[in-house]
């Protein structure tokens, strides 16, 4: 249905136009001395991109994010698999992650700063505590919810326990594990930015804090705009990969 696709695309563009237009107008009124217009902000963004400050800043910001997400992914998936496969480990460990999932872990940041100082370690830790619970709980839940009929199938065709874990449970759980990773990355972004704003201003957090202090609001808005845009684009990319990678994995169980 090309016409339907056109309509949806046109509406998306219209919706973007309305929002940015409203931003522009609000900046002209202005609603606040600290509210630059959309075009001014984009100009500032262009300037920072041209002189390279933006890319240097992102190099700085993304480092704790990448390291933290990598650690959380490896450790989180391993823990999640173990929790899903072993009832005693589930009993022992999952309450911690259930509490972590519900708790405002950001409150731990002052403590992390006290223990690990204001360097990279603390920031990586912040990313990890934000990203880990959802990865662990998604993995464990996915393993636990493997359809019992395909596990029975594996047993009846003489699969050994390692066979059933490697060839049935893990492939069957992988779409949910992956979406847990995506949510982990999303939480990791929150953690990375929080770390830069709260612990020490570096990277994009530095641009935001510094331009606020000298009242260069267009630059401040531009930096915020760019980090949100980056996060959203990256998460959408992950979602796209997810949809392609596991196409049909979630269908086909149904006995229709």
């Amino acid at each position, binding site marked *: 249905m090309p016409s339907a696709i056109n*309509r*949806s695309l046109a*509406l*998306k563009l*219209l*919706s*973007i136009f*309305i*929002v940015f237009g409203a931003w522009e107008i609000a900046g002209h009124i202005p609603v*606040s001395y*600290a*509210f630059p217009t959309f075009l001014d902000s984009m100009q500032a963004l262009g300037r920072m991109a041209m002189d390279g400050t933006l890319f240097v800043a992102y190099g700085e910001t993304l480092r704790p994010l990448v390291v933290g997400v990598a650690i959380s992914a490896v450790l989180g998936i391993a823990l999640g698999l173990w929790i899903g496969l072993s*009832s*005693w480990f*589930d*009993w*022992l*460990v999952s*309450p*911690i992650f*259930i*509490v972590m999932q*519900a*708790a*405002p*872990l*950001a*409150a*731990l*940041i*002052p*403590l992390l*700063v*006290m*223990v690990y100082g204001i360097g990279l370690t603390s920031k990586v830790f912040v990313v990890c505590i934000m990203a880990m619970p959802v990865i662990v709980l998604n993995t464990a839940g996915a393993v636990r919810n493997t359809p019992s009929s395909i596990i029975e199938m594996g047993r009846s065709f003489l699969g050994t326990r390692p066979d059933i874990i490697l060839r049935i449970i893990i492939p069957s759980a992988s779409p949910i594990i992956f979406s847990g990773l995506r949510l982990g990355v*999303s939480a990791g*972004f*929150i953690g*990375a*930015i*929080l770390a830069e*704003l*709260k612990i020490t201003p570096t990277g*994009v957090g530095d641009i*935001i*804090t510094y331009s*606020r202090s000298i009242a260069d*609001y267009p630059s*401040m*808005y531009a930096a*915020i705009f760019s*980090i*949100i845009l980056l*996060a*959203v684009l990256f*998460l959408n990319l992950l979602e796209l990969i997810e949809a392609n990678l596991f196409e049909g994995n979630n269908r086909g169980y149904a006995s229709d």
Partner: protein
Amino acid sequence: MTVFGVRLPGMSSLILWGLLWELVGRSGFSFFVPPLSEVVTTLFAVIGTPAFLNALGQTAYAFFMGVLAAIVIGIPVGIMMGKNRLLDELLLPWVNIFLSAPLTALVPVLMVLFGFGMRAIIITTTLFAIWIIILNARAGVMQINRSLIDMARSFGATPLDAFFKVYCWAALPEILGGVRIGIIRAVKGVIIGQLLISIVGFGALFELYSNNFMMGHFWAVLIVLFAMAFTISELLAHLERRVSYYAAKR
């Protein structure tokens, strides 16, 4: 988990972790980890102090105002999106963006626009909670069984009747699910807001304790905070299970 035929309750392993904490604390492993017993003693000492009650009151106020705003705005917007295709197509991309965007980055903007105070924190809280509430209310309305709507119309329900007697109830389980997740996010939002603005509520308290290295106090407040967050989330999950008993049977 069963041991010798006795089923151990779900969260009982936390007792074991508490014991471990006590042992680690007593071994003098780290200055930053005082024994749990000491933390608990401090907890009871701290809990009645004006500083604590003040922080709690401010946090609770910001939290409730933020959640209230998120619910009051979020549910009607979500229902309208579910019913009106044009509105849906215009708003949905933005709802999805803000659902996954790192909203922490917006806090500095809120600070310069609304000042370093309560208002910015309330708006942060609302921003954390509202998107999932909208999305779930929308999903709830959209999944309503077509034949249920036809039934209402064929029995001559007025649009207003249909809205309040059919739509609201049929979408209720999803709406409540959204409110539950929204509230859990709001708890995180209110704390993040306070930490970044850090002159009110628990944010100020944490600042005070960590600057003076009062580890017992720090942990005590942390435990209270986590326990409250966990209780809220379990309570809501329990309520949701009670209300959405019919969700599975549609």
